[in-house]
């Protein structure tokens, strides 16, 4: 299994990378939605995308929408600190398969992965 971590926060990228590593999931991290789109345009594919919502240049909602328009069928899990229902709904409607509130933990990540399997 492979994963893409999309988060502008270096601390979160480091933690999510390690979480995935410890579960034996090969992963790559990028710093915003545009980089997530670009990496897919370069031909790379991932089973799982952990997508932050608030990011500069291209946020998680726009990136998710774009990836779905491109035909990307990977599991996209939104991971954010946002808790307002409307904001989360907009994120889900952009094309998420799952949403987890940060901080991401092992058990939350396992529940995401179970949905892929």
């Amino acid at each position, binding site marked *: 299994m492979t994963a893409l971590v999309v988060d502008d*926060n*270096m*601390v*979160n990228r*480091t*933690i999510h990378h390690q979480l995935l590593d*410890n579960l034996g999931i090969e992963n790559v991290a990028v710093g915003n939605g545009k980089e997530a789109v670009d990496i897919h345009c370069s031909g790379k594919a991932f089973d799982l995308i952990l997508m932050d919502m608030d990011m500069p240049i291209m946020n998680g909602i726009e990136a998710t929408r774009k990836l779905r328009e491109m035909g990307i069928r990977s599991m996209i899990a939104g991971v954010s600190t946002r808790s307002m229902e409307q904001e989360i709904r907009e994120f889900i409607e952009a094309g998420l398969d799952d949403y987890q509130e*940060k*901080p991401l933990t*092992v058990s939350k990540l396992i529940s995401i992965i179970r949905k892929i399997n």
Partner: protein
Amino acid sequence: MERNPMRRQLQVMRKSLFDQGYLDEQFVQLEELQDDANPNFVEEVVTLYFRDSARLILNIEQALERKPFDFNKLDGYMHQFKGSSSSIGAKRVKAESTLFREYCKSGNGEGCMRTFQQLKKEYATLRKKLEAYFQVARQAGPMETACRPK
């Protein structure tokens, strides 16, 4: 019961950090990610946090010097800062961040300034305590498993 005196001291320090509310469960999650392949993971993440968040604190400080306050901008910076703080389990710092954001939303500049001063105090205290903790941890040597706070 830990026989190694350094390790005992470390346990006491660690317990104190949780009992006094400086850290929460998320710190334990970080400890559980540490293993033989990444024996210094927690210290590395915490170091990264303090380095990265120093920039955000400076941004907020500069934004608070500009009148009238741009509450959207302040809230944006604090949202990022709170996110990082939450990720390492910095409980008190996170609480002040939450309060600051509430003041931003209600347009209360005085509240923002007051809370920011308190946040900086908590942040500085946490930094000092964690630096001391990791110094002892390095001397004590690697731990086998993470211990949940009692």
